């Protein structure tokens, strides 16, 4: 019952009771009056007085009632409303006013509110800390993986790539059909699916076997296998399962569910080839040697057993021996030459630029030592800037430092000189000095002693280190100039053609792009794409530059630029950017528009080569473009010529913009970008436009969701409805 009604009821009750009271009093008075004198008031006066009394009584009563109501009925109701309000807005407090009892209640409520706010803040802080530490761990992992010299790929159970490092990208990319490594892509474009499944099965089998009848749980950590990639490289892969607690997935190892796997890859093509070459070499030495030796032996035995043979016969045998010996010598020389170059590929060694080594050696030699005030001066001269060495650089630096410091300690040498020159196929590294020097035996012993200087020691000797690098070191006196030196000859190496170690730096606040753990749960469970939410789908945003605006009148594509959106992020570092030779002339007007000149296009691959690559790039994604109908028409027209069909769903940002802002006049990309707050730069290259389109699309997604367009089906239906959809090419 509303409080006002209650009040009215109470007031009425009070008035009635007052009335009854006064009426009773009047009646009593009247009764006593009829007994008594009757002097005084007239009946009207009495009635008037009674009425006044009633009125005053009622008024007083009502006033009291209203006051009480205000203090003890409406005030608590107000307090209740205010309390309700604090549920939504945390920082409010109840005012300190009203009846003392209510004030006490209010203060108690405020205390509770304060406690609640503190709790909320605490929880928020904890969540933030946890998130920050998680991000830090992820960054560390990403940095670790970026720096590994092996390729690492982490996939979820469906074979979707979650994480990979730069080396993996370079090792696994670049085959003719355009299959590349990328976030969200299937690893099965590179690896045979059956192979991975078989490996996981073997792991499961092994874990099952080992848990039967044994106490502890022994899980087989990983499995190795060797496979050929489509590009023809031989990879040795080590597969380790990622075990998680989630029991939804089917496959299990030792009771823990597999949620994915990690592949560590080693390209063994070269070492395999080298091994094969070496085996072939040994084989040829053995087999190639048997023949000539056989002939020689036989001839020699003839000569010795039958000393009475005619001279001509004798000559013939001798010729045999001579010729076969010569052939054998030649064979040996060839084998030695082939072998020595392979020998230098020992894996313990690394390539280092010679001048860099000398510089570091000089620095290390002049490092101050704890008990030594005098500093040894190191001069470097004659250092060949382009000479590469393949050495155990740490060992070599140790050796140089050891020799230099020993010279300082035992012969008070003040200055040493380092030089590095090329001598044919060899590098000549000299550590020379002026002044006193030792005799040959002492020098030799220095080269054979274990390297001990002060507190640093190594079990190896200088000679050992140099031998490891397939080099030679000796002591030599330069007679004329009173210099002596330790001269080292090392095989010169070719400049490495190795991979640049690029760590892709993340933009401020953005996650570094090589991993995405959020799609760990993503599976290829088949539900129609149409019912997927736009937020969870993957897209390829693309744009083309063409020779003109008429696809059916002979205009051709001259550039395709594309990038992918996975998990609501634009992957800037996984792009497709290719110029295409249109095999026709460009009109000057079109050159003005896109800035691509004819000579930039000559020599580029044609659409027959590029279209399959692009098809592979956008496999399993939804195509997004601005005014996509235009580009799709071009692609469709090439279907017959290239045999490539683009059958994935297509979304057009122009139509979506019309869905969002139907009353805007222009739907040009720049205008939409400005409207949505996307910065535009690098325009009028296909890739630049694709990037802008991608950002625009991402900005549109939440706006579309607000309008109730959340799934692909809804987006397509809404697009169709808009006006521009009627424009056909």
């Amino acid at each position: 019952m509303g409080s006002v009604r209650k009040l009215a009821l109470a007031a009425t009750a009070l008035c009635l009771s007052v009335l009854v009271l006064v009426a009773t009093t009047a009646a009593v008075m009247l009764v006593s009056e009829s007994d008594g004198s009757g002097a005084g008031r007239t009946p009207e006066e009495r009635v008037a007085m009674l009425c006044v009394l009633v009125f005053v009584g009622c008024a007083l009563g009502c006033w009291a009632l209203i006051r009480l109501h205000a203090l003890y009925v409406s005030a608590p109701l107000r307090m209740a409303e205010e309390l309700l309000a604090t549920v939504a807005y945390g920082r409010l407090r109840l005012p300190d006013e009203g009846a003392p009892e209510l004030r006490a209640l209010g203060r108690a409520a405020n205390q509770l509110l304060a406690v609640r706010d503190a709790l909320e803040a605490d929880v928020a802080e904890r969540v933030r800390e946890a998130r920050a530490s998680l991000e830090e761990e992820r960054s560390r992992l990403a940095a670790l993986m970026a720096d590994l010299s092996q390729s690492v790929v982490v996939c979820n159970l469906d074979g979707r790539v979650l994480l990979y490092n730069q080396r993996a990208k370079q090792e696994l990319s670049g085959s003719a059909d355009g299959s590349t490594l990328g976030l969200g892509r299937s690893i099965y474009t590179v690896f045979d699916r059956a192979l991975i499944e078989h490996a996981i099965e073997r792991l499961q089998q092994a874990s099952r076997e080992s848990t039967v009848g044994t106490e502890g749980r022994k899980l087989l950590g990983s499995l190795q296998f060797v496979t050929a990639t489509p590009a023809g490289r031989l990879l040795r892969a080590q597969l380790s399962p990622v075990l998680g607690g989630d029991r939804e997935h089917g496959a299990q190892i030792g009771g823990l569910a597999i949620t994915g796997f990690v592949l560590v890859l080693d390209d063994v093509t070269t070492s395999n080839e080298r091994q094969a070459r070496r085996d072939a070499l040994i084989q040829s030495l053995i087999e190639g040697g048997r023949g000539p030796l056989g002939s020689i032996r036989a001839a020699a035995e003839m000569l010795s057993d039958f000393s009475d043979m005619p001279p001509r016969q004798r000559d013939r045998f001798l010729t045999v021996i001579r010729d076969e010996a010569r052939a054998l010598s030649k064979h040996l020389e060839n084998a030695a030459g082939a072998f020595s170059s392979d020998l230098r590929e020992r894996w313990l060694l690394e390539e280092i630029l010679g001048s860099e080594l000398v510089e570091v050696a000089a620095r290390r030699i002049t490092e101050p030592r704890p008990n030594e005030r005098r500093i040894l001066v190191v001069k470097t001269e004659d250092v060949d800037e382009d000479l590469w060495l393949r050495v155990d650089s740490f060992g070599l630096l140790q050796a140089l430092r050891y020799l230099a410091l020993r010279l300082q300690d035992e012969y008070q040498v003040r200055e040493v000189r380092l030089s590095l020159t090329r001598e044919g196929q060899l590098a000549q590294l000299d550590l020379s000095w002026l002044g006193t020097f030792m005799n040959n035996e002492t020098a030799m012993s220095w080269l054979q002693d274990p390297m001990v200087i002060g507190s640093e020691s190594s079990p190896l000797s200088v000679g050992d280190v140099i031998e490891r690098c397939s080099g030679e070191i000796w002591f030599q006196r330069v007679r004329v100039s009173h210099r002596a030196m330790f001269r080292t000859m090392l095989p010169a190496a070719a400049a490495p053609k190795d991979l640049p170690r690029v760590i892709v730096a993340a933009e401020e606040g953005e996650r570094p792009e090589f991993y995405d753990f959020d799609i760990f749960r993503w599976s290829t469970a088949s539900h129609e794409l149409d019912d997927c939410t736009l937020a969870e789908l993957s897209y390829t945003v693309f744009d083309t530059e063409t020779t003109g605006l008429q696809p059916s009148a002979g205009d051709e594509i001259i550039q395709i630029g594309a990038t992918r959106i996975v998990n609501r992020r634009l992957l800037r570092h996984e792009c497709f950017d290719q110029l295409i030779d249109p095999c026709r002339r460009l009109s000057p007007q079109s050159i003005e528009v896109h800035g691509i000149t004819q000579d930039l296009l000559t020599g580029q691959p044609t659409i027959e080569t590029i279209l399959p690559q692009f098809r592979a790039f956008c496999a399993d994604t939804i195509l997004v473009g601005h005014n996509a109908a235009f580009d799709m028409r071009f692609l469709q027209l090439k279907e017959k010529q290239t045999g490539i069909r683009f059958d994935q769903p297509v979304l057009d940002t122009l139509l979506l913009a019309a869905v969002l802002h139907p009353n805007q006049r222009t739907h040009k990309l720049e205008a939409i970008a400005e409207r949505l707050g996307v910065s535009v730069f690098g325009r009028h290259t296909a890739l630049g436009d694709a990037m802008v389109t991608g950002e625009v699309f991402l900005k549109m997604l939440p706006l579309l969701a607000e309008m109730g367009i959340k799934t692909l089906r809804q987006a397509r239906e809404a697009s169709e409805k808009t006006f521009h959809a009627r424009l056909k090419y």
Partner: protein
Amino acid sequence: MSKRILVADDEQNIVISIEFLLRREGFEVTVANDGEEALASVRAQKPDLVLLDVMMPKMNGFDVCQAVRADPDLSATRILMLTAKGRDTEVSKGLGLGADGYMTKPFSTKELLSEVRKLLEV
């Protein structure tokens, strides 16, 4: 006066051929079978040329070469290394230690002869 050549090698089968060849050419040939013997022989007889193998017992050819070169009295002695150690770093070492020539086995005896003649300037 005919030139004197010392052949230092522990492998009898090659020594026999070299000795035969050089004697036929008119050189005086002595033989040493290990490094110490070789060094002693060089000091004692002062030959004009030493044919030095590297892999010998007691003292290897590189050390003999270095020792000979360290002795100013023996500066006129020519040294030709004749060895199975054929890697280019080893060749470099031999020449760096003061050898006047370096030939790897197997070699052609004609080449050996021409090299010997060149070093002895005959």
